[in-house]
């Protein structure tokens, strides 16, 4: 009798843990869907207020408008690595980490660190691409928790990237280039870098660091192709699948 009780107890424990997980993830995904919707709204509101090409090219005031919610939402995404590590979601934690780190780096390591980079069309392109993608993604995850998977949403998730992914990458690269132009002169460079001499004989040139980061974007074509493959698999669009 006692053995049965403890077994029943552990099954119900497992069930309540899984319900707890589901509700936690529901709250997480919902908050982020709302967060990114707000970011998109503020972005569009700012951009339609621009009166000249120069305004758009420099994106005056955009960063100030979205800085806080953007930092919160993008950094909170690290929780998804934790979710993957503890099996709350079925993703590879390493892959999730790599996807997040590039965005987080752009927010904190480029735009936040080198304020002049905030005045770039790149910010607008990147944030627009990110927010549309994330709204769809988090909404998709939230609904998925209850086995709801609207065809339209799925189609959007696996099709919008065709435009948004190159758009986002363009935005990120433009922002990085703006940052690099800003810190190229030696006087400015030294403010953002670790210079010699120092006690630990360590130097870190931020300009060259950004050069290396740019090189990482050469992975874009491979990732883009991979996403098309995923799309074909999920939406069953490959010709061989069509049976007569």
């Amino acid at each position, binding site marked *: 009798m006692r053995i049965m009780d403890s077994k029943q107890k552990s099954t119900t424990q497992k069930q309540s843990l899984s319900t707890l997980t589901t509700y936690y993830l529901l709250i997480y995904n919902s908050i982020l869907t709302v967060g990114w919707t707000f970011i998109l709204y503020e972005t569009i509101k700012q951009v339609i207020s621009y009166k000249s090409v120069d305004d758009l090219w420099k994106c005056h005031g955009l960063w100030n408008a979205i800085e806080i919610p953007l930092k919160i939402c993008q950094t909170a995404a690290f929780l998804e690595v934790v979710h993957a590590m503890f099996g709350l979601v079925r993703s590879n934690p390493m892959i999730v980490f790599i996807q997040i780190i590039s965005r987080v780096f752009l927010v904190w390591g480029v735009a936040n660190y080198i304020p002049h980079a905030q005045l770039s069309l790149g910010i607008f392109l990147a944030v627009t691409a990110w927010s549309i993608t994330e709204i769809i993604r988090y909404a998709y995850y939230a609904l998925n928790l209850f086995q709801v998977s609207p065809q339209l949403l799925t189609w959007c998730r696996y099709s919008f990237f065709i435009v948004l992914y190159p758009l986002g990458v363009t935005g990120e690269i433009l922002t990085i280039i703006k940052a690099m132009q800003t810190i190229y002169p030696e006087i400015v460079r030294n403010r953002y870098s670790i210079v*010699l*001499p120092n006690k*630990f*004989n*360590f*130097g870190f040139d931020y300009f060259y660091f950004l050069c290396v980061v740019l090189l990482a974007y050469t992975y874009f074509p491979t990732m883009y192709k991979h996403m098309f493959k995923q799309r074909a698999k999920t939406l069953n669009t490959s010709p061989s699948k069509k049976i007569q």
Partner: protein
Amino acid sequence: MSAKNQGNTFRLEVLKARGNGVLTSIDNISPDTTIAELKKRVAQQKSQLYPDRQSYRAEPTGKSVKDTQKLSELNVDKTKKIYFKDLGPQIGWSTVFVAEYAGPLFMYLLFYIRPSFIYGSSAGSKPMHFAAHLGAACWTFHYAKRILETLFVHRFSHSTMPLFNLFKNCSYYWGFTALVSYFVNHPKYTPPSFGYAQIYLGLAIFILNEIGNLSIHLLLRDLRPAGTNQRRIPYPNKNPLTNLFHLVSCPNYTYEIGSWLGFSLMTQTLTALLFTFAGTVQMTIWAKQKHRAYKKDFPDKYPKQRKAIIPFLI
């Protein structure tokens, strides 16, 4: 002594383990043929598949078989099939190690002479601190020792490794060499905070650990009889530095960490410490594998107080 099945030669189909297809077939092969001999025969037919590239299994998915096994032991004389896997281009172990160690040796010395294309035109004439000279001496000693050990001391379980490993390992060694040597040899190098006391302490630690590492390598060499893959439990010998075997399974790695800690202390250079850390992580992984293998091979006899790499800890 098993009777030779002289009259039972058969035709062996060599199939590809991945995908379907026949690689080739061997006529008139005897059940007593070893895998090693099979590899030679296949290489005769497919010249680009030298024996070190070939790997065989009795089933399409399964563990690969050893060179010493006979076809009859694997039931292949009944099934008349064996499965082949191409291990890809191989490179000799010794070749790899010499390339991996010669690169760092020469690259460090290249930075040591402070060439103008790295440090600017006036750098070569600026004075160099004693610690930086010692850094170059220790680095050179370490890698020269490694090359000599590869040529004269070590015995390897496999004769080759995949070519890809060469690029991966060389990137690691050459990359870190650049990172360390750039800063130690820099004209703006700052000597250690605690001066010569720190420099000599670091140097002493380095030398002691290098000798320790060599002692372990010599012990391991004598442990394994020449030309065999036989495994035995290593125990300390007359050399007091080998007493570390009482506490860890891989004291050679422990001493290696010690050497680099000494080097980092002596030069007070952050990238040297990063290099030490990276090496420690990798060697801990290897030590744990080796430790597990020892315990599996010798479940009753293996000394229980031994850890893998850090005494009492890991």
